[in-house]
């Protein structure tokens, strides 16, 4: 089923459910139905739902993603469901050749990554990013692909947006020149 059709199907289900319950469906229940197939629900990423990555590969991806965006006082990549998101995007958005480039890049990266002590792995990721940016390879190196997917997944996730940005779904007005001192934190402008 296409994503549009899937989304429509969920809306339709919701409408029907609301009708069956005499319109008394609760907001959280409605939300649960609408989000039923969300890429970022907690159970996604369980081995049985993986599409491109193996469970072992997902573990490495999760570890690197968490290094790129760790849990601090705000949520980290794992909290945001980034590993499962990456698997979903690889499957739905990437062509086979790019999926293969990602998985073979992952295999090559994994060995030296694992050989580092856990405490040194962050430095290794940083160093790998620096040399990849310097090399300016095209197509982009594995670690840059992973970094881009991590940022995309995290900053399009609910916790990623709500923890880090001032998300105002209905701004109601536009002001062209506002001093930053009057703004809270990074405003969601996308």
């Amino acid at each position, binding site marked *: 089923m296409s*994503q549009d059709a899937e989304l429509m199907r969920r809306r339709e289900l919701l409408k029907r459910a609301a009708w069956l319950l005499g319109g008394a469906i609760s907001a959280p229940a409605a939300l649960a139905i609408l989000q039923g197939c969300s890429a970022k629900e907690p159970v996604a990423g369980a081995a049985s739902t993986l599409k491109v990555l193996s469970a072992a590969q997902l573990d490495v991806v999760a570890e690197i993603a968490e290094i790129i965006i760790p849990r601090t006082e705000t949520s980290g990549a794992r909290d945001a469901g980034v590993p499962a998101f990456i698997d979903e995007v690889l499957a739905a958005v990437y062509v086979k050749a790019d999926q293969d480039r990602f998985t073979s890049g992952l295999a090559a990266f994994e060995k030296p990554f694992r050989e580092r002590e856990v405490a040194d792995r962050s430095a290794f990721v940083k160093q790998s990013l620096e040399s990849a940016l310097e090399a300016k390879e095209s197509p982009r190196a594995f670690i840059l692909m992973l970094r881009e997917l991590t940022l995309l997944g995290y900053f399009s996730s609910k916790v990623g947006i709500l923890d880090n940005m001032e998300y105002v779904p209905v701004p109601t007005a536009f002001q062209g020149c506002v001093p930053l001192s009057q703004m809270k934190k990074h405003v969601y402008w996308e």
Partner: protein
Amino acid sequence: METNSFDAIVVGTGISGGWAAKELTEKGLKTLVLERGRMVRHGEYPTATTDPWDIPFGNRVTQETKQRKPVQTRSQYPTPSNTHWFVDDLDNPYTEVDGSRFDWIRGNHVGGRSIMWARQSYRFSPLDFESNAKEGIGIPWPVSYDEIAPWYDHVETFAGISGASDGLAQLPDGKFLPPMELNCVEIEFQRKLTEKMGRKLIIGRVANLTAPLTHDQSPQRAPCQYRNLCIRGCPYGAYFSSLSSTLPSAERTGNMTLLANKIVYELIYDNDKGKATGVRVLDAETGAQTDYFAKVVFLCASTLGSAYIMMNSVSARFPNGFGNDSGELGHNLVDHLKAAGVSATVEGHEDVAYTGRRANGYYIPRYRNLGKEKRDYLRGFGYQGRASRSGVGRFNNSSMIGAELKQAVQEPGPWVLNLSSFGEILPNHLNHATIDRSRKDKYGLPVLKIDTKLRENELAMQREMVADGVEMLEAAGYKNIHVGENNYGMGLSIHEAGAARMGKDPKTSVLNKFNQVHACKNVYVTDGSFLASSACQNPSLTYMAFTARAAHHAVEELKKGNL
């Protein structure tokens, strides 16, 4: 036959069809409105209030969409948040003649592309209506600016166009709601352009409500909430679309019968009466064929859609297609010319930003070939763009990670500013569409074959569009000036027009000055087909004005017994 008979039939529900439906029904005509795509009613916008985290795949376009919609995704528009508004190309094929790319971006549903349009609303100017005659290009326009100006007033007032009165001869002012604001960097760019180059930069004129409408005919519409999610459909009815505006008005008259999934494939012509008597329709779901009858028919099926219906309507009187005595039907296809986009970073202004997401940008109106200036090409172009503070994407080329990265994301990025050009393409008989009878779609109907290319004037203009863009950013002192890729193919601006041009002389044109088919006066064509030339401004407002004028003309002619 009784239940299939109406006073008027309108084919299509986009910008033009919606206006025809509103004006005809308000004048008391029982009107059948036919849409080839699915039913959508105002408010039925599945993703309109969906938060970003509920849009799958970070809103990246999927391989499935690319496979089903290889033409639609040539534009940057279809994403998981809105791809339901773009046709499935495999189910809606057409033929591109070898080496001649044509990007036909479409939405088959009630409301058509008025749901996804960019809402930029500019009048054509006196100059635009005069250039063909002055320069000997195409054929002279049969309508002057002064004749159409009151109809621009009429449609602007009803639709609600926000903008500033800028006093420019090449871009006449209209009946505006208050303008949106430029941001700090845009104001600086505006000042520099004026001081250093004598060029104007104005806030875009856009069909979004910045204040309540000045009439009470659209109680379903509320002002813009600055979400900038218009392309998904607006639950507030804050921008003009057929769904939010014209069709509800038509519905309230009680005179409209709106049917979806009805593919009009032929006009019915009565040789004895010398009139069209109705349309032949295929039901998209059941395949059933039905004839519908009316005193007057409005074709508003988009320029290629209407040209298709006319070319597919062959009779003893019209062996070469309906109303095609001139041989110009399907010809003179134009679009708006784009070139590579130009962008730069703007230093400074780090302590300011903006709040809200403005569903609009700025506009640099045409400045070339005005007055005595003569470039090595004819006509001109304008630019649309905006300045903004860059977002998370800027970190894709940084090695920053960890807590440091999370901290850095909290700060808005550097200012970036871009220019995207839209130029006039000259009408040319050689740019045309025909019917490809060797190929059928899933309904068994033959498909369109499109054969267009950019010619010398366009290529010269494209070079200047890029060079001028770079020059303006340099003059403003902006850094890291970047020229993007030129990925333009004819059609990509989604302003295709001209396939049944209007003119004084039936020997060289398909329509007269009231959008009537010269050879069959009870058929009006009021979508982009009628343009004798396209100017460089976004065209929808002009379709609205001519459609409203044609509908009033049809009602008067019916009263006089002339149709």
